[in-house]
């Protein structure tokens, strides 16, 4: 009985493979792509437990156990990087969502289609440019000799500020630049959600004598709640992953700012590219990947409990 069952199943698997060979072939390029660029490097994470050197290769280099991690923890580096990465992301998520909702609600109040189109075009524009250009723009505004901000300060008779050596100013700058680049883009989802709200709710509210504020408070905001919760939960899942391009092009190799600006990605990039340090950087990367994986799983588990349809898997 059992043997017969297996043969039948195997046969049906072969049959399935044969029946869907064209569809399988159509998926093949993508599958090969992810094998080559994403799965094949995975065993290389072993470097985190070795004293890697080029000559002996990844699996020939001496095994050192958790020494690379010990170093990271003892030096306090891991804690600083984790703290910076998480705090920046929290600020991005909280302020970003508030701003996106506010912009979406106000955009919905605009009656003129022309005005709406033009202002949306302006708000999306920062999203289209490269991180390199974002860095150029920030330098343009903030540098000591010629920056627009210092030019303004000098014109009004004040003393120019050395922003590129004032670590305390950078959390604010990075957050503002991030919001500048992503708010227009992020508001699209909320705007679409507002467009989808049942019009009769607004009409009923108006008939009941609700003011514009009350309609926002009692109709719009509650309707946006599910979108908001899901978006926030998923961003929380990615809280260990920073926006490398933004941080690197704003701060770069400016060591005087690292205390407040260094995140996991920038630190790993520096280790690999300028110090050729593969062991510590792999250890940090592995820690980030595992921690991040646990967070995504948790976020997805919570989303699933709220509403199964929204869960990723």
């Amino acid at each position, binding site marked *: 009985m059992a043997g017969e069952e297996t043969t039948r199943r195997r046969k049906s698997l072969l049959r399935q493979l044969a029946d869907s060979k064209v569809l399988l072939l159509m998926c093949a390029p993508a599958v090969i792509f992810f094998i080559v660029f994403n799965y094949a490097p995975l065993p290389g994470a072993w470097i985190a437990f070795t004293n890697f050197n080029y000559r002996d290769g990844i699996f020939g280099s001496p095994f050192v156990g958790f020494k690379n991690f010990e170093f990271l923890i003892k030096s306090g580096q891991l804690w600083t990087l984790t703290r910076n990465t998480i705090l920046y992301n929290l600020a991005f998520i909280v302020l970003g969502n508030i701003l996106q909702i506010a912009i979406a609600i106000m955009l919905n109040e605009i009656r003129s289609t022309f005005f709406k189109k033009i202002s949306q075009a302006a708000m999306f524009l920062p999203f289209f440019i490269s991180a390199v250009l974002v860095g150029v723009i920030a330098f343009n505004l903030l540098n000591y000799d010629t920056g627009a901000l210092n030019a303004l300060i000098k014109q009004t008779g004040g003393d120019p500020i050395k922003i590129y050596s004032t670590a305390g100013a950078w959390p604010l700058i990075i957050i503002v630049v991030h919001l*500048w680049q992503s708010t227009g883009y992020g508001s699209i989802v909320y705007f679409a959600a507002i467009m989808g709200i049942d019009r009769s709710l607004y009409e009923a509210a108006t008939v009941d004598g609700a003011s514009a504020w009350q309609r926002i408070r009692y109709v719009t905001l509650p309707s946006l709640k599910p979108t908001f919760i899901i978006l926030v939960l998923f961003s929380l899942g990615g809280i260990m992953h920073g926006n490398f391009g933004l941080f690197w092009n704003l701060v770069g190799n400016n060591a005087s700012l690292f205390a407040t600006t260094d995140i996991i990605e920038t630190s790993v990039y520096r280790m690999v590219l300028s110090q050729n340090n593969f062991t510590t950087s792999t250890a940090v990367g592995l820690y980030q990947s595992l921690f991040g994986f646990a967070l995504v799983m948790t976020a997805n588990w919570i989303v699933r409990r709220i509403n199964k349809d929204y869960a990723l898997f």
Partner: protein
Amino acid sequence: MTDHINTDGIIGAGGVGMGPAKPRAVKLDRSDIVLQTISYIVITLFALFCLLPFVLILSASFSTEATIMKTGFGLLPKDFTLTAYEYIFKAPRQIVGSYIVTITMTVCGTAIGLFVISMTGYALNRKDFPFRDHISFFIYFTTLFSAGLAPTFLWIARDLGLRGSYFAVFLQLLMTPWLIILMKNFMRTVPYEIIESGKVDGAGDFRIFAQLCLPMMKPALATIGLFLALSYWNEWYLSSLYLGSTVEFKPLQYLLYNIINTANALRNSVAGSNVSITNLPSNTLKMASAIVAIGPILLLYPFIQKYFVSGITIGAVKG
């Protein structure tokens, strides 16, 4: 992502911004007028805030270095000059080479990427494809767990031998899990009856895809093509890892990255010699390079913006 998002309407309209105005009671309350006034003011201010930095760069690129050094960057060029652009195009070899590299990568990458992504998205959306869940998860898993920068770098640069090769950059940007999921979502809008009718007529799976589905997918192809083209055009990160200074012509944004970062060094070295700093248009040169690097996007922007809107809205609807 939520049932509040009406995807069909958005695809049809080709953009949220173009949606119909909200029907409302004709009589406006005082609070309505206040809210609308605030909305117009805040949206205007925010739009200006988004736009101003671009004006600043543009104006600086047309200024003389001396003015910039004396009065700093401003909104309007105080003295109009094309010196910086002349400087760039005096020896155009470098910038033209970079343009050719970036345009070639963008065009080929977008075309090949679109083909592979839409083929995969089509197969993964076919309900009668028994391996769709396995392959979807196989692709999705790569977003959950990665080897990290160092092992990936060693694998691609050393084991695959792609260090110093444009292919290291070109291949890695071809597709992302997110774009495949986005395409799969778009494919849902093709009625299943169309696929059925193709089957009845005896067409193979690939022919159904290429001749029946693709022509219906123009908005999707435009949206995903836009995202692909942007990632190729704006690429500097992979170039910094895998190309460095090994190639003669760097991709455009990476060239800009180098100009920005070496212009400072250049100015410092000149400052020690007898050459006057103001003769070397480093600031205006940087700004002009930035304009040259962003130019094509600004020119195409009005035409591509609407696809961008529909793409994000559909992308937010989970697959």
